[in-house]
């Protein structure tokens, strides 16, 4: 007997109805928000539109990787600070991964004391909030450095003090470009040797220490060239004038504090991720590798690490994403990152919160999506075929 009820009981009817209901509710909700927003904004007399982007910024930004002065536009200010965020994230990711790798090795070591040290490191740096660690580096540790006049002196060429790390800047003098060229030559020769060594091993089975030879070349060739040409690379050494250092360049304490804080904090998490990944590889794999006769190095590099990477990449990408997002905290110690510019510098001046929020969201979402996309590509490449 067909009636209204049996029509309703059909699975497809129900699901379609629910979905359409959601769509309608969503559209109505968005419209209602839009309506309220425009009413409120008119009431509060807020300007809209993106014209302000070409107005003069009026505030300085340091560090600035591209040319910037207070006369540049807001748009340029946004780009400079976005670059700062990206650079800080990138460098911190590299250092944190390196340190995390060593922490993982410590926790996997047969040495009990080393394991305990690794454990302590992870527990301490994981459980203390990141902002607190940043404050510690910026307000406590770095502020204990001496003043400019009594900087910590590194062989009279680099100076560490409360206002930064002043280091020499290399200046190419005559013949300097030849040295740089020789570095490139050394690099190319190393790559050629590396390729040749792989071919040779394929064909004759004989291994060749291409890695050590390569490193040796990259260091020795330019050094030798420089020696022959009488070291034509000059250094602009920071010299202390009356009030300040002239020449050379410097790393600001804000940047240093962020780098230290982000690296040490994230290394604890990354160390755990790497360790868990290595432990996830089936024990039998190492045994099979050993019973074929692989050395420890060979067993790890050929069998264990490639498999561990499958377990490591997804959570480590998540951690990198978190790192990139947490750079926003730089605003708390005055480092000129993207969030600081949008919320701390531009917003009070223009008052156009809506547009600024939209740009901020877009900026960070862009970074997140980029990192996620990289991981998806890697995932595709490293798929192990199964039935």
């Amino acid at each position, binding site marked *: 007997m067909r009636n209204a009820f049996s029509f309703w009981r059909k699975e497809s009817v129900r699901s379609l109805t629910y979905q359409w209901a959601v769509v309608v509710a969503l559209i109505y909700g968005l419209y209602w928000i839009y309506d309220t927003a425009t009413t409120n904004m008119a009431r509060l007399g807020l300007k809209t539109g993106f014209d302000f982007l070409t107005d003069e910024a009026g505030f300085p930004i340091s560090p600035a990787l591209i040319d910037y002065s207070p006369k540049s536009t807001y748009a340029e200010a946004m780009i400079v600070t976005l670059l700062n965020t990206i650079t800080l994230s990138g460098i911190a990711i590299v250092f944190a991964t390196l340190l995390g790798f060593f922490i993982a090795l410590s926790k996997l070591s047969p040495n009990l004391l080393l394991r305990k040290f690794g454990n302590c490191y992870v527990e301490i740096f994981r459980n203390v909030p990141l902002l607190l660690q940043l404050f510690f580096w910026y307000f406590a540790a770095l502020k204990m450095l001496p003043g400019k006049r009594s900087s910590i002196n590194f062989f009279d060429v680099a100076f560490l003090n409360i206002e930064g790390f002043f280091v020499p800047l290399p200046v190419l003098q005559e013949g300097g470009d030849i040295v740089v060229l020789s570095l490139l030559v050394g690099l190319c020769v190393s790559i050629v040797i590396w390729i040749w060594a792989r071919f040779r091993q394929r064909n004759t089975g004989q291994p060749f220490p291409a890695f050590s030879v390569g490193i040796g070349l990259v260091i020795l060739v330019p050094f030798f060239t420089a020696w022959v040409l009488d070291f034509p690379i000059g250094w602009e050494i920071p010299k202390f004038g009356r009030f300040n250092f002239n020449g050379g360049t410097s790393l600001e304490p804000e940047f240093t504090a962020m780098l230290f804080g982000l690296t040490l904090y994230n290394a604890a998490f990354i160390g755990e991720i790497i360790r868990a990944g290595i432990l996830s590889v089936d024990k039998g794999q190492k*045994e*099979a590798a050993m*019973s074929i*006769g*692989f050395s420890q190095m060979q067993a790890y590099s050929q069998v264990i690490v490639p498999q561990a990477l499958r377990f490591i990449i997804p959570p480590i990408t998540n951690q990198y994403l978190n790192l990139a997002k947490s750079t926003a905290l730089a605003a708390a110690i005055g480092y000129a990152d993207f969030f600081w510019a949008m919320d701390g510098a531009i917003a009070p001046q223009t008052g156009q919160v809506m547009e600024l929020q939209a740009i901020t969201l877009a900026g960070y979402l862009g970074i997140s999506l980029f990192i996620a996309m990289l991981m998806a590509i890697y995932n595709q490449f490293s798929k192990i*075929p199964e039935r």
Partner: protein
Amino acid sequence: MEFDSIILFEKVNKWFGDFHVLRDIDLSVVKGEKIVICGPSGSGKSTLIRCINRLEEHQRGKIIVEGIELNDDLKNIDTIRSEVGMVFQSFNLFPHMSVLDNLVIGQHLVRRVPKKEAEEIAITYLNRVKIADQADKYPGQLSGGQQQRVAIARSLCMRPKIMLFDEVTSALDPEMVKEVLDVMVDLAQEGMTMLVVTHEMGFARTVADRVIFMDEGQIIEENSPDAFFDAPSSDRAKNFIGQVLHHL
């Protein structure tokens, strides 16, 4: 007890923590011998053969393989490992490499055989275990029996003098057990020295020169297969055979 033992165990003892897992093991294996080791679980059978390629370390006693004593000396261990091949219960193929690469990588990196030559050797052995058509597949795409045969071929590519088999059919579905046992029978007929830990009594009867029965870390009985199965001397062996044959 001497004449040309390729493996010699002298009063070998091993403990796992406080657990005395191998007690005063004396064993001598002659080149070309096929030995089947059986016994209840926990008797130390796997541990015994794993001591031969140093996957487990013994604490007391001497183990001598091909005249080289097994101790902490890494060079000795490496030499012995390249002469001894092992096949595992859980196959342990490298899942991120193709079947062919699984067979090539050991030869290439450990024995320094050029890639082309290694591949030819690999194909020979894949033919021997009758699985050459799967050379480009990955382990995850093969059945259990196929994977185990590849595992055997992988060990054989290293041209070992001794092959150790650790319950290699226990993880297989019944219909795949035969294909693996057939490969092992062929190998036996070619004169390989084999130590096989297994529950497959039929295989033991066909192939073994000697059956060793272990319980609680000791060798309780050693005999030719017919003598062992038809007329075991110790009570434990009688018990064990009774329980196992119950299955068949």
